[in-house]
């Protein structure tokens, strides 16, 4: 019985994977079905999870089953008043709950950013212009890599300064300031390129995962894929397929 459910699960996974990828061909009923199913399942799962993993163990059970912590009535009240937005007459009460949420998150974010980002990041940028260890390594083993290691600190320091100068808008970017801010914008472009490269890597990884899954389960992939192609042909013949062919220039 378990094997049968497992097989059925694989067939459903294959169908939904191909249905989502079919959007690369064009918008179609298979894609729409998968999209709506995903939204519905995700919403249902999220609601059940919140009740089972959060509301029951952290609020209702300690409050009403074990009578452990009467202070839990406060978050219960603030949570319930959020729903007064549905009643015009009492909707102002929802601001109390919202104020608590915004206040707590803003407080944690400011505290976290100050301690975790601002101070430590500034401190980590305070470094010697030339690293003694890198210089010694270059002295004992002269080579391209050891030379790059020597350049690491100067690039870091000058790069940080030039990028900061690029965001200095109180003076026109001409003369020396223009040159420094030009270096800053080039460094920013390099960092954007690195981010784009990482994004490409991540997207390809997603496809690799699905391709590996399709190869491992090649029989259902081929059968469902062929059936989908037949369905596309039938839709095209019946004239229901009226979306235009996309070109590279539309990307």
């Amino acid at each position, binding site marked *: 019985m378990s094997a049968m459910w497992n097989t059925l699960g694989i067939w459903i996974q294959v169908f939904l994977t191909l249905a989502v990828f079919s959007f690369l061909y064009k918008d179609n009923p298979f894609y729409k079905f998968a999209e709506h199913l995903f939204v519905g399942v995700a919403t249902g799962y999220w609601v059940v999870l919140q009740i089972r*993993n959060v509301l029951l163990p952290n609020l209702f059970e300690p409050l009403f089953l074990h009578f452990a912590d009467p202070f839990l009535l406060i978050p219960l009240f603030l949570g319930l008043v959020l729903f007064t937005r549905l009643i015009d007459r009492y909707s102002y009460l929802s601001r109390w709950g919202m104020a608590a949420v915004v206040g707590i998150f803003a407080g944690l974010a400011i505290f976290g950013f100050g301690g975790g980002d601002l101070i430590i990041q500034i401190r980590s940028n305070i470094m010697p212009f030339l690293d003694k260890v890198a210089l010694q390594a270059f002295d004992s083993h002269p080579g391209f890599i050891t030379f790059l290691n020597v350049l690491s600190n100067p690039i870091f320091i000058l790069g940080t300064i030039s990028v900061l100068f690029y965001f200095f808008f109180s003076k026109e970017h001409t003369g020396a300031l223009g040159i420094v801010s030009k270096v800053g914008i080039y460094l920013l472009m390099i960092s954007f390129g690195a*981010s784009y490269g990482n994004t490409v*890597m991540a997207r390809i990884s997603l496809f690799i995962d699905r391709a590996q899954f399709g190869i491992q389960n090649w029989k259902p992939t081929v059968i469902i894929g062929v059936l989908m192609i037949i369905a596309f042909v039938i839709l095209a013949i019946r004239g229901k397929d009226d979306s235009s062919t996309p070109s590279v220039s539309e990307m």
Partner: protein
Amino acid sequence: MAVPNQQDNQTLMQKIETMDRRIIFLAIAITIILPLIFPLGLPINVSPQVKDFYSAIENIPDGSVVLFPNDYDPASKAELYPMTVAIINQLFGPGKNGEDRNLKVIGLGLFPAGPPLLEKAFKDVAQDKYGAKYGVDFVNLGYKEGREIVMASMGESIPKTFPTDFFGTSIDSLPIMKGIQNYGDIAIIVNVSAGYPGTKEWVQQVVSVFDISMVAGVTGVSAPEYYPYYSAGQLQGMLEGLKGAAEYETIIGHKGIATSGMDAQSLGHFVIVFFILAGNVLFLINKRHDTNAKGGQR
């Protein structure tokens, strides 16, 4: 007389520039699928941040408690699940001298759909491969809403924040949780993160406040955001996307799903670089052609 349409007047270069984009999708799909069927075995070089990730876990004392938040869901499974599996292999595998390290691993997730993935990895690797026992050697505390509030609350009391585990069992009844109160009892945080809430929030809310060691495995998209934390020493080591997972599999000696995808990844990058270069060359050629054509009309 037939009127020639605009398509007929296009040069070959213009036709290529405006070709159906699905040809590019097909080319990339073929380039990725072929090496998955016929592997090339391209070499994998282990980068310093991956070596540091490995060393940070290797250097914690035997018998330590490891906090293992897996903050991702199926949307990032392709990149991050191989990391989870590889990390569990290092945590439960033998130490440098072949000894049993007896580490206690507390898993959790701040993404709603994350804990079932962690549960599968625990069962397949910790339980079935290394014989680790649930509730004794490892536990899955499951998901909790609250994001940064959960992290801050765990600093006060982990049992109060997570009164029950993923299965609804009271954590007071689990031997692994005996004597564990807060971050003071944790040796290292090993975070696998897909975004918010994740590595950034753990660093901001926990590492900088409670002075605790942390390593992180993150998605390729978000990795550039976390390099400053690594270079500042707030992260002891870092795995970056599927590439990082493959390097980590290499260093721990358990070649798995990440390694098997690296040939496809490399060839996929090669094809995309080719298309970017070709697109720019075509753009310049066609721009020159258009300029010349306009000059001729004058």
